[in-house]
């Protein structure tokens, strides 16, 4: 009798609900990274010198480049929302495409950054690292874990961007229904937020 009632009637559209759900998910992420920052704070407090020396081992230039491009990508994803709100599909695609490319570039940079360190034996369990003592092991352990989990979020973000990009092209996301784009944007800003703190903690403070 009511064959498809299940999907037609009680899945109603509520953009505000979707956005609230996304924000709650962001809070979850904030607490997850928050605990990593807490660990960083504790270990930095206990090993101040080793953390200073560790910070000097990390390449500031790559860090600055990644920070700048990530900030730009945050702006472009925000602008793509403006574009879709104004009904400018091509502009939206252009901004979103830029963000996507920047995300990939970020990962490429990360790959080279990690690659050089691993070559020198600076990785968890690596000989060179173990020789440098406990504080340094902790510093690099946190460095790999925190920037690794961050990079994982970038990869997930790339997946989301590809999906949203196609949806805009197929006009599934448009001027009056763009909550997917908005939520992807929120997610990407979260990734940016985390990096805003990771950057000084690992690359800057000596």
């Amino acid at each position, binding site marked *: 009798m009511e064959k498809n009632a299940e999907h037609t009637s009680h899945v109603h559209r509520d953009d505000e*609900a979707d956005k609230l759900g996304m924000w*709650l*998910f962001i809070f*979850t992420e904030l*607490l997850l990274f928050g605990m990593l920052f807490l660990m960083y704070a504790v270990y930095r407090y206990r090993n101040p010198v080793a953390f200073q020396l560790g910070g000097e081992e990390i390449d500031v230039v790559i860090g600055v480049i990644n920070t700048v491009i990530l900030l730009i990508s945050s702006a472009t994803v925000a602008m793509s929302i403006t574009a879709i709100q104004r009904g400018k599909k091509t502009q939206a695609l252009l901004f979103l495409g830029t963000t996507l490319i920047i995300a990939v570039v970020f990962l490429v940079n990360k790959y080279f950054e990690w690659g050089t360190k691993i070559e020198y034996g600076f990785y*968890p*369990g690596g000989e060179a690292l173990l020789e440098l003592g406990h504080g340094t092991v902790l510093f690099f352990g946190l460095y790999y874990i925190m920037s690794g989990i961050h990079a994982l979020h970038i990869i997930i973000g790339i997946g989301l961007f590809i999906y949203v990009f196609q949806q805009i092209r197929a006009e599934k996301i448009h001027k009056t229904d763009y909550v997917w784009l908005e939520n992807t944007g929120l997610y990407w800003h979260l990734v940016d937020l985390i990096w805003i703190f990771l950057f000084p903690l690992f690359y800057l403070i000596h």
Partner: protein
Amino acid sequence: MSESTTSSKHVSFLEYKGKYKGLLGWIFSTDHKRVGLLYLYTMLVFFSIAATLGLLMKLQMLAPGHTLMGPQTYNAMFTVHGIIMIFVIVVPGLPAVFGNFFLPLMIGAKDVAFPRLNLASWWIYVIGILVVLSSQFIGGWPDTGWTFYAPYSFQTPVNIVPALVGATIMGFSSILTGINFIVTIHRMRAPGMTWFKMPLFPWTLYATAWIQVLATPVIGITLLLTLMERLLGVGIFDPRLGGDPILYQHLFWIYSHPAVYIMILPGMGVISEIIPVFSRKSIYGYKAIVLSSLAIAFVGYFVWGHHMFTSGMSGRALYAFSFLTFLVAIPSAIKVFNWVSTMHKGSLLLQTPFYWAVSFIFVFMIGGLTGLVLGSLATNVHVHDTYFVVAHFHFIVFGGTGYSFMAAIHYWFPKMFGRMYDRSWANIGWVTFFAGFLSLYTPMFVLGLQGMPRRYYDYLPEFHAWHIFSTLGSILMIAGAAIVIINLVRSSRHGQKTSEKNPWGGKTLEWQADTPPTLENWEEVPTVTQKPYEYK
């Protein structure tokens, strides 16, 4: 409405035929009621398993020495008992079963905000369980205790990776349920239902959902870090690499203490529903109960350290945590006073749900008051990590969550299944269970005071007498649980049919829906004008 009027509009959710038939119609159904029941059946299976493990452990403790099993088996048993009971049963417990089933009904919604996500949560939960169970085939059952304390958790020769991964996955399911409930409550309340016209069970679910969203990621990252530590030797918690094992305990309890409130708050909500209905009286101090729920949820974040009074933390941290712990006791005390006052001058309907609710108050008081012994620094040092703690948390977690679960299912059973259980067997089950429960756990307080440490496979002869008492109690309690469960399972299929909308005379919205509810709950969403529990 009588049985025969099964017009197309009044097909209950149980009989509804969707795209899939049979079992598939359940495991692919996004209907919040079916999802709730899926959780219920899953929990029933795993509760039986974990309770059996508990019984076997009690039998091993009947006499000192190697009686039933070796130490490795015993250690694996209390670990698996803990993991299943905590992560599979009590943490999801009331929210996943009764929250899913009744939250939309009680606030006048047709479903939760994200029905597909809701079904996905159940799937994720089941996958998490399966991953934990895969331990059996890859490296043996975990033997670390459910707390996975560092550094033992990366030194034990058995493979604890599946347990860590599985628990993390289940945590993810819990987060999604929490997000779903918060959004549902914010966006989908019936017209006229302002925040302070919302019944108390949804209120406690709301407070709980916030803890699920904000605390569960902490355990997720902690378990993942333990995993990385074990697999890669990162040096985060391992003292040999400079890590601090006490930091593991901080992170673990930053989640696991709030998790206790995830377990108990919805239970308090259920009791706050049942007491006024069975007293035929408005709840005493509605606002106090709401505010104390929120206060518990918030202050509960800052007391995790009382699990670590002997861990080697600094003295100042100890008394800060002790102080906060005593403060968090107050909102719970207020709730007890409110419940008892609600009965005053009521007209008490003495039925099974009420018995469970009243015995909840009793065991919860014992659990809470012994919590004061644990919160006080001097006494904690003596009883920490002894049977006293085991008794205390079984009174709170099993007594609190378990009794409220039982109260809830006896209360809402007719609405859920459109059938009634056998009331005399239900009462016999309750008495047996209650007597067994008390004789199982009360001796443990004495054992703890005498200095019997927990997680001991064997013990000194001086502890023997009380262990016998406790083991006999466990047999009685399991018998009681069996009576209750068999009665309910049997009645869900063969019980007296009923389509009475409101058998107990409740005032909350779920009693205005059909029995059992239809797929969409309402033909027309009701408009709310009164406060909940408005008895004249």
